[in-house]
C-alpha cells in the first residue's frame, strides 16, 4: 500500500542553552544550501510547510526550521510555570546562532518572518560572517503598536481567540482560504502568554546596531508587502 508521505522529517534535539536543558523540535526537507527558517510570533515551524513541500526549492535547499522554546513541539524550560515568558533580544539572536552551530550548518541562509524578520536584522548586524545570505519577511526595525497587546494575555479573554482575531487581520483576502485557516490554527494552538511574550521583542531596541549592517559582508534581502 502506498501512502502519501510528505518529504518533511521532524526530530527532537536535546539542547543545552543559556542555563537550561531545552528540548527543541526541528524539521527539515531537501538537500543543498542550508536554509534556516524562523517562524513568526505565536506560531511554529509548520508555517514553512509549503516551502518544505515545494520540490523546486528542496531540490536546491535543505530547508530547516526549529520551534523556539515555548512554541510548537519545543518545550518551555523547566520551571516555566513560575515565570512569565518574554522573548528577549539577546536570547533570540543567540539561540538562532547556537542552533545553526549545533546543527553544523555550513553558512546557512537564514530567513525569518515577523519577529523572525526583525531578528535577522540583528543577525545581519553582528553575525554576518556566519550566514551566506539573510532574508527578512515583513522586517521592521522600529514598528509601532496599533492595538493594545495586553489583550493577548488578559485573564478574562481566551488568548487563542485574540491571536486569531489579530492575525487574521493581517491576511490578504486574496490568500487561499484553506491556507489561511490552516495557518490560523497554528496560532490557536499557541500556549497562553506566548504570543504576548513574543511581541515583547518588538519593544526592545535594535536601532543601536543597524549601523553595523554591511551588506558587502552578507547580502540582506527584505521582502515586504
Amino acid at each position, binding site marked *: 500500500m502506498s501512502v502519501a508521505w510528505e518529504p518533511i522529517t521532524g526530530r527532537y534535539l536535546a539542547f543545552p542553552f543559556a542555563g537550561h536543558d531545552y528540548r527543541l523540535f526541528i524539521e527539515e526537507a531537501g538537500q543543498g544550501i542550508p536554509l534556516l527558517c524562523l517562524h513568526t510570533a505565536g506560531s511554529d515551524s509548520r508555517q514553512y510547510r509549503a516551502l518544505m513541500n515545494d520540490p523546486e526549492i528542496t531540490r536546491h535547499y535543505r530547508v530547516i526550521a526549529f520551534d523556539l522554546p515555548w512554541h510548537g513541539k519545543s518545550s518551555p524550560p523547566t520551571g516555566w510555570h513560575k515565570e512569565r515568558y518574554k522573548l528577549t533580544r539577546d536570547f533570540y539572536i543567540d539561540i538562532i546562532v547556537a542552533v545553526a552551530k549545533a546543527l553544523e550548518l555550513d553558512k546557512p541562509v537564514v530567513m525569518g518572518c515577523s519577529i523572525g524578520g526583525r531578528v535577522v536584522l540583528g543577525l545581519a548586524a553582528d553575525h554576518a560572517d556566519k550566514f551566506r545570505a539573510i532574508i527578512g519577511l515583513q522586517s521592521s526595525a522600529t514598528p509601532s503598536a*496599533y*492595538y493594545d497587546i495586553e489583550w493577548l494575555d488578559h485573564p478574562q479573554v481566551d488568548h487563542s*481567540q*485574540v491571536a486569531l*482575531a489579530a492575525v487574521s*487581520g493581517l491576511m*490578504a483576502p486574496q490568500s487561499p482560504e484553506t491556507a489561511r485557516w490552516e495557518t490560523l490554527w497554528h496560532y490557536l494552538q499557541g500556549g497562553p502568554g506566548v504570543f504576548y511574550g513574543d511581541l515583547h521583542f518588538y519593544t526592545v531596541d535594535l536601532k543601536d546596531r543597524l549601523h553595523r549592517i554591511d551588506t558587502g559582508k552578507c547580502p540582506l534581502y527584505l521582502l515586504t508587502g
Partner: protein
Amino acid sequence: MLERLPELVNDDPDLVWRGRGLTARFLVAVGDDEWLVDVQAGRVASVAKGPFRMASWAFALKGTRAGWDRFWQPVPPPYYQDIFGLLRQGELRLEGDLLPLWRDMMYIKGLLATLRGNGAPA
C-alpha cells in the same frame, strides 16, 4: 445598510455559533451616522439607526466613512480588509468596555464582514 444585519447574521449558523457567548448592545458609527446593534447569544435581535439622544451601549466601533467604504468593498484594498487594518490606518476608534469586544472579536469581525458587497452604507 446595517439594517440588514439580522438577516445576514442570523442566516449564518457558523457565525451565530461563533458569537453564542455574546449578549450585548454595541454602536457602529460610520462618520456621523450611528447604528445600535443588539446581539443576543450570537443572533442580531435588532438594529436601530440614529441619531440617538441617549444611547446606551457596551462598546462602540467609530470609523470614518472613507474607512468603512473601503472595508465594505467586495475586495477591500490593503489595510482595509479588517478592523485591525482600520485601527492601524487611524480610520477606527474603539470605545467603551472593550472586554466583551475582545472576547468576541472574531464574531464582531464576521458580523461586520457580512455587509461586504451587501449594500453596506455608502
